[in-house]
C-alpha cells in the first residue's frame, strides 16, 4: 500500500466516524436552534428510538416498514418530551433546563437497560455488505450509506426551513420568540415541533449507526461528546455546519490517531478538544455561525 493510498484509506475511515458524529450533531443543532438549550439527552433519545425500531423488527415487521413507524413514534415522542419534561421548566434559568436534560439522560439510559438489558443487540444493516474499491481505497457501503442519508436529511431540513411556511415560522421563533408571538405564531407548538423534528433526526441517526456501533443502552454516550464537538465547530445553529463539523472532527481525529505518534489512539479523544479550542479562539462563533450567535 502506498503512503497516499494509506492516507486516503484513513480519510475514508474518518469520514465513516464523521458521518456518525454528524448525524447526531444535526439533532443537537436543531434543538439548540429552536430552544437555545443543549440537550444532553439527545443521544439517549436516539438510542431509545433505535430500540423501538429493533423491537419492531424483532417482532417480525420488515425493516423498511419499521423505519417509518419508528420515525413517527420518535416524532410524537419528541413532542411529548417537550410538553411533559421541558415545558414545566421553560421559564427557569437556562442551566436548570440543561440539568433536566441530564436527568433525562440518566433516566432514559437506565430505562433502556431495564427493558432491553445491556446485552448487545444485533440491528439489521439497511445497506448491503461489502464496499467498493477505488484505487486501492476501500469504502464500505455502510459508510457511503450513512454519509448519503445524512446529506439527504440535511437537504430536507434546508428545504423545510427555507422553502416552506412552517419552516419560516420555525426560523422566526428561533430568531425572536417574542416577536413571533406578537405575529400570532403559537410558539409552544413550534417548540414541540422542533423537539419532534430533532427526535426524528436523532432516530435516523440511531438507526444508521446501530449496525456499526451495535445497539446497547450506552451506544450513543460516546458519540455525544464528538457530536458536541461537531456542532460547536459548525456554529451550533447551522445544519450544514453540523455536518461539515462532524466530518471534519471524524477525519481529524482518525488522522491524528494514525499519524501523530505522540497522540496515538489513546489520546485522540483530545483532538476534538484542540479543534474546539482552536476554532473558538480564532472564530468564537464557529465555522458556520453568524457573529451575532455568540451567546451570553
Amino acid at each position: 500500500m502506498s503512503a497516499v493510498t494509506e492516507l486516503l484509506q484513513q480519510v475514508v475511515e474518518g469520514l465513516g466516524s464523521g458521518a456518525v458524529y454528524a448525524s447526531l450533531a444535526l439533532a443537537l443543532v436543531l434543538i439548540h436552534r429552536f430552544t437555545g438549550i443543549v440537550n444532553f439527552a439527545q443521544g439517549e433519545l436516539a438510542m431509545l428510538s433505535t430500540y423501538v425500531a429493533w423491537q419492531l423488527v424483532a417482532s417480525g415487521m420488515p425493516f423498511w416498514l419499521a423505519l417509518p413507524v419508528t420515525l413517527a413514534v420518535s416524532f410524537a415522542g419528541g413532542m411529548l418530551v417537550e410538553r411533559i419534561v421541558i415545558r414545566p421548566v421553560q421559564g427557569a434559568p437556562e442551566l436548570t433546563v440543561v440539568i433536566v436534560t441530564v436527568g433525562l439522560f440518566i433516566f432514559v439510559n437506565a430505562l433502556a437497560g431495564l427493558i432491553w438489558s445491556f446485552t448487545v443487540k444485533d440491528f439489521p444493516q439497511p445497506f448491503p455488505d461489502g464496499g467498493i474499491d477505488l484505487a486501492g481505497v476501500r469504502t464500505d457501503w455502510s459508510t457511503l450509506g450513512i454519509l448519503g442519508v445524512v446529506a439527504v436529511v440535511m437537504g430536507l431540513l434546508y428545504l423545510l426551513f427555507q422553502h416552506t411556511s412552517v419552516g419560516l415560522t420555525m426560523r422566526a421563533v428561533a430568531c425572536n420568540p417574542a416577536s413571533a408571538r406578537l405575529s400570532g405564531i403559537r410558539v409552544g407548538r413550534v417548540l414541540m415541533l422542533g423537539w419532534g423534528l430533532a427526535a426524528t433526526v436523532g432516530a435516523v441517526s440511531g438507526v444508521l449507526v446501530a449496525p456499526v456501533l451495535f445497539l446497547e443502552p450506552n451506544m450513543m454516550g460516546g458519540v455525544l461528546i464528538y457530536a458536541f464537538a461537531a456542532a460547536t465547530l459548525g456554529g451550533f445553529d447551522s445544519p450544514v455546519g453540523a455536518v461539515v463539523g462532524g466530518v471534519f472532527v471524524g477525519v481529524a481525529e482518525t488522522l491524528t490517531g494514525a499519524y501523530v505518534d505522540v497522540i496515538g489512539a489513546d489520546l485522540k479523544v483530545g483532538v476534538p478538544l484542540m479543534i474546539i479550542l482552536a476554532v473558538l479562539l480564532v472564530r468564537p462563533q464557529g465555522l458556520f455561525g453568524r457573529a451575532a450567535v455568540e451567546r451570553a
Partner: protein
Amino acid sequence: MRKTTALRAAAVVTAALLTATACSSRRGQDAQDTAADGACKGQQTTGITDTTIKLGGIYPLSGPASAYGTISKGVAAYFKYVNDKGGIDGRKVEFVVRDDGYQPPKAVEEARRLVEQEKVFAVFQTLGTPSTAAVWDYLDKQKVPQPFVATGASVWGTDDKHPWTIGWQPNYVAEARVYAKYLKDERPHAKVAVLYQNDDFGKDLLGGFKKAVSGSGIQVVAQESYEVTDPSVSAQMANLARSGADVLLDVTTPKFGSQALAADARNTKWNPLHIVNNVAASAAVLRPVGFKNVQGVVSATYFKDPADPQWANDPEMKTYRDALHKYAPDADPDNQFNAYGWAVASSLHKALDTMKCPTREGLRDAVRNLKDVKVGLLLPGVTLSTGPGDAFPIETMQLMRFKGERWQLFGEPVDTRKEFGPLTK
C-alpha cells in the same frame, strides 16, 4: 451581651445534643461485633450464626458499567436456590446488593455500609479493579473477607499485604499465557496486532502476553488502544490492518468485541487469525456480528457459556436455567454474566463448606486453601486450587474455536501455572 446570648444558646444546644448522643448514639453498634468460643476462640463471628450468614456485594447497577450489574442476579439466584434447599450447612444466606455505579468513592461508602451497618460476614463481591482497589485497604483493616472479587487483575493474587482479598476468575495474565502458548505451538513466527481496552484489564492482558511470548519468534507488531467512552473501534481496526499482522489479539469488552469482529469481517483484504479474549467471547457477542462472519475465531474459557447449545443438557446448566427462571425471572439465562454469578456463588458455597471455623478468619483461610475443588458450571478439567504461594483460584483455561453456530473446545485444558510457573509481581 449579644455574644453571651448566642454562646449560651450554643451551650444549651450542645449539651442537649451530647445528652442525646450519649443516650442513643449509633456509634455503639460496634459493640455488637461478636467472637467465637471453643477451638476458634477469639475469631470473628460477625454476620454468621448457626442458622444464617449475611453477605454483601457491591456491583455497578447504574452508570457506564451497568452491563456487569447482572452478575448480582446470578449470585442472588444461586443463594435463593440454596436457601430453598436448606441453606449452606444449615445456614440461610442473606445477600445484600449495593450499587456503586463503578465509582470508587461510592464503593468505599457502600463497603463501609455493608461492614458497619449491615454487619455482613464477608464482602462478596466487589466488581471492577478501581472499586476493588479502593476498598481492599479498608476491608483488610477491618479484617473482613473480600473473597472472589469480580476482576481479573493479577494484583489480587500477587499482592501479599491484603490476606483478606482474593480473586476468582483466571487473571488476565493467565489468559494471555494461554493465547501465547497456543501461538507458540501453532504459529511460532506469528506477527501479532493487539487491540486492547486502555485500562487495567487491557494492559494486564497485553503486558502478560508480551512477557509470555518474549524470547520466542512471536512479535507484537502493532497495538492500538481504545477508551471505554469511545463510540467505536473502527479507526483502531483500520490502523491494525495496516500492520499486515497475521494474528489479531482482541482484548475487548462485549460491545467493542462485536465491533472489532464486525470490522475484521468487513475487511476482506486482511484476514488474520482472530483471537478474542474471554470477556467478549460469549455467543451473545458473536451473534449480532453474524455467525458466518466469525468462523474460525479462537478464544479461551473456563466456565460453560449458557448461550452455547453444547451445554444444553449439562445437569448443572439445567439447574442454573431452572433456578434463574424461578428466582430471577427478569434475568436472561443466556447472558454469560448471570452464569458467571452463579458459578462464583457456587464456588463460594464450596469454600464456605471447607471452613474449619465458621468465622471470618475461617473463610479467609478456606479460600486460600482450596484443593482441586470442582464447581458445576466450570469447564471439565477446571478446578479451584489455592494454597501457600498460590492466591489464584482458577488458572486453567481451555482453548476453543468457533465453528458453525457454537464454540468447539479443542486441546487439553491449559494449566498456566504448570506451563509458565507461578505469577509474581
